[in-house]
């Protein structure tokens, strides 16, 4: 018997999409039966009470979680999001309902051994409810009590060689696309760079030392499967410098209809016979492709590596061999002064381990600047707006590059450095008046 009536949530059990309500109910029942004889360290009916409080929120149209909650583990300044129910008498099972962020492996590949170990810990010491995964990337353990936090942390670190993720004003958990593990477009090893930087900057991740949060994300190519350009303060996007590789025979196979365009992604509808002119050449944003008789030609100097032609004909066109990545900075959600996507600050940099140049010439100078100049709760993107892209260029010690702008400014409110102007700014009005009477 369910502990609380949930008439509204019950309506979310029908329909084809996996129902979180059915899953939660099954979990509540499983805990009540406890066939494995688990020595539950938080209330057995935690999931019943979660359903109960959610039903109440559905009735009121308002959340029933109190503001904030500062809890954690010694040694770290983040990793746990504290949460307390605002109706603890009615729902004692979720009076404490803290979230723990657990650092996920690159590409989110798992073995079942690992997942079962995670589940064993969480079944005993938490609610047995998770998010797979948080939008930043972490495995989210959803709901436990304060006294269990150190116990879970001890088990994770001692028995699983596994750390917490980030929260607060620090480096958050980095995440990557599947990259070279299973994608022919990947221009560098996203998992390796992600892992390397995560390990390198563990201190910055666990102990908030920044003006605000900071995120890294790693995309293997400009398709941006982990959306780094929109969802990370520093976005690493793979690219290449030389020519797109063309297999002319395969091009003919696409034209002849033996190979499906875009790997069959449009198979649900009849779009007519593949037309290379219409679907590839005419859609190229730079108009740098053409057919020379039966040969597909690309003027690679004019190509902006948008991926369209490669996406449409993956068996005929391949990324170049001189590979690296671009770095874009400043993406953020709207609060405070508007949403931003990443701005190109490094057009091309090599991405080979140990990634020294990326660390010493980009990440650390940017951090030094932002940690010194960033105002309280000012994201990197906002500091860039306040102090200008010119400052980023100075901080990186590079030359201004037309690639860093979409277009030159159209207002003429141009600052000059005093040393750039002959004679400097120190002038004498009396000298001027000698030639220009009042």
């Amino acid at each position: 018997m369910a502990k609380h009536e949930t008439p509204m949530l019950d309506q979310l059990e029908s329909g084809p999409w996996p129902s979180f309500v059915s899953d939660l109910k099954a979990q509540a029942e499983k805990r009540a039966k406890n066939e494995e004889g688990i020595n539950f360290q938080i209330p057995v009916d935690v999931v019943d009470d979660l359903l109960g409080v959610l039903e109440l929120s559905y009735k009121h149209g308002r959340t029933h979680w109190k503001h904030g909650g500062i809890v954690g583990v010694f040694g770290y300044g983040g990793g746990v999001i504290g949460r307390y129910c605002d109706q603890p008498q009615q729902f004692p099972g979720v009076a404490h309902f803290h979230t723990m962020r657990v650092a996920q492996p690159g590409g989110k590949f798992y073995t079942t051994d690992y997942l079962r170990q995670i589940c064993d810990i969480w079944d005993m010491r938490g609610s047995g409810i998770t998010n797979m995964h948080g939008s930043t990337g972490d495995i989210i353990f959803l709901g436990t009590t304060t006294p269990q936090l150190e116990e879970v942390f001890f088990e994770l670190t001692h028995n699983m060689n596994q750390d917490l993720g980030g929260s607060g004003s620090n480096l958050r958990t980095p995440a990557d696309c599947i990259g070279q593990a299973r994608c022919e477009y990947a221009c560098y090893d996203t998992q390796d760079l992600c892992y390397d930087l995560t390990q390198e900057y563990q201190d910055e991740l666990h102990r908030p030392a920044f003006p605000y949060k900071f995120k890294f994300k790693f995309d293997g190519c400009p398709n941006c499967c982990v959306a780094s350009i929109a969802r990370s303060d520093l976005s690493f996007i793979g690219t290449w410098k030389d020519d797109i590789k063309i297999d002319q025979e395969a091009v003919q196979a696409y034209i002849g209809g033996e190979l499906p365009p875009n790997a069959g992604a449009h198979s649900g509808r009849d779009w007519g016979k593949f037309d290379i002119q219409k679907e590839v050449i005419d859609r190229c944003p730079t108009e740098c492709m053409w057919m020379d008789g039966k040969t597909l030609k690309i003027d690679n100097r004019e190509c902006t590596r948008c991926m369209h032609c490669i996406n449409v004909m993956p068996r005929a066109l391949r990324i170049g061999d001189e590979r690296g990545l671009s770095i874009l900075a400043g993406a953020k959600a709207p609060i405070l002064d508007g949403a931003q996507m990443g701005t190109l600050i490094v057009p091309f940099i090599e991405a080979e381990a140990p990634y020294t140049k990326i660390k010493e010439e980009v990440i650390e100078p940017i951090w030094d600047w932002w940690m010194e100049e960033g105002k309280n709760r000012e994201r990197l993107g906002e500091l860039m707006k306040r102090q200008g892209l010119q400052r980023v260029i100075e901080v990186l010690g590079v030359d201004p590059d037309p690639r860093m702008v979409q277009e030159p400014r159209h207002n003429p409110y141009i600052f000059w450095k005093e040393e750039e102007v002959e004679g400097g700014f120190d002038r004498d009005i009396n000298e001027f008046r000698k030639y220009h009477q009042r």
Partner: protein
Amino acid sequence: MAFVSSGYNPEKPMENRITDIGPRKYDEFYPPVIAKNKGKWLYHEYLQPGVLVHVAESGDEVYTVRCGGARLMSTGLIREICEIADKHCGGHVRWTTRNNVEFMVDDKSKVQPLLDDLAGRKFAGGSFKFPVGGTGAGVSNIVHTQGWIHCHTPATDASGPVKAVMDEVFADFQNHRMPAHVRVSLACCLNMCGAVHCSDIAILGYHRKPPMLDHEYLDKMCEIPLAIASCPTAAIKPAKVEIGGQKLNSVAVNNDRCMYCGNCYTMCPSMPLADTEGDGIVIMAGGKVSNRITAPKFSKVVVAFIPNEAPRWPTTAKTIKNMIEVYAADARKYERFGEWAERIGWERFFDKCKLDFSHHLIDDFRDPAYYTWRQTTQFKF
């Protein structure tokens, strides 16, 4: 429920403490065929919605079956995923950046048994546990947030509306009939944890009433300058109030300048603003993150308000379904939602989708708002 120690000694908290070890290394978990062929993949193909094959230089193949996941999931369900992965995939499984689950096998003959097994698994209420799909030009999983399950600042729920919308567009999770892929996302407040600002279609929780002020507690609970600095429109100023004859430091909110973003509440627990009738949903459209053909785009606000209609948010689900249908019928092959809307013009977009255009949709936030108005005589009647 007797306390069981993990070995941690609360008397000596720093003793035996392991820190800064980070996540486990990615390659501990690769299936053998992935480990062997990493970085040597030649091409891929979608065999059917939800099923991919990748072919390596060595000739090796890996078949991937992608299934929808509710993201919020129990250990019971994760254990079931493990059981499937043990049975079919040598104990390997992965999750995607849109929170789908992927099972991989190294031979074509193993695909059909896996598909049959997945198709047979349903929850007690009848929904599929592992619907196969989410590939190619269709509608994949909805990236979403905490909602009323765990957050204190939401204006709507996350898991509920996502379930309602996915039920409505479910056929397109399992089909490739769209002009391009359609990414839907949801955030329950405008902190936008996730991908709302850069999705083809986005659902955003929104308030419509200024915060209430808990003057009696405000100065004790909040750092007043932080609350003041948190306001994008400078609607908050410090104030002295008198309550029960007692002079208290607090804040005053100029309701005319407040646009209910809730950021002050994030900073100050004494400024709650959630409201049954006031809160609801804003719909945005036309964003993308890939650089394919056109540059990444922000999503734009196209519906200023839909009330919260728990438990199934029918108006939200129908509005989205309708937008997807109009787009599917009108857009060209490879054209993303935002590219389509920009090509036909936003005036035509509202026309075709039969959406109201109200004053709420016109940008009025600071200097950049000007650039969103129309400085040309080019428009369609």
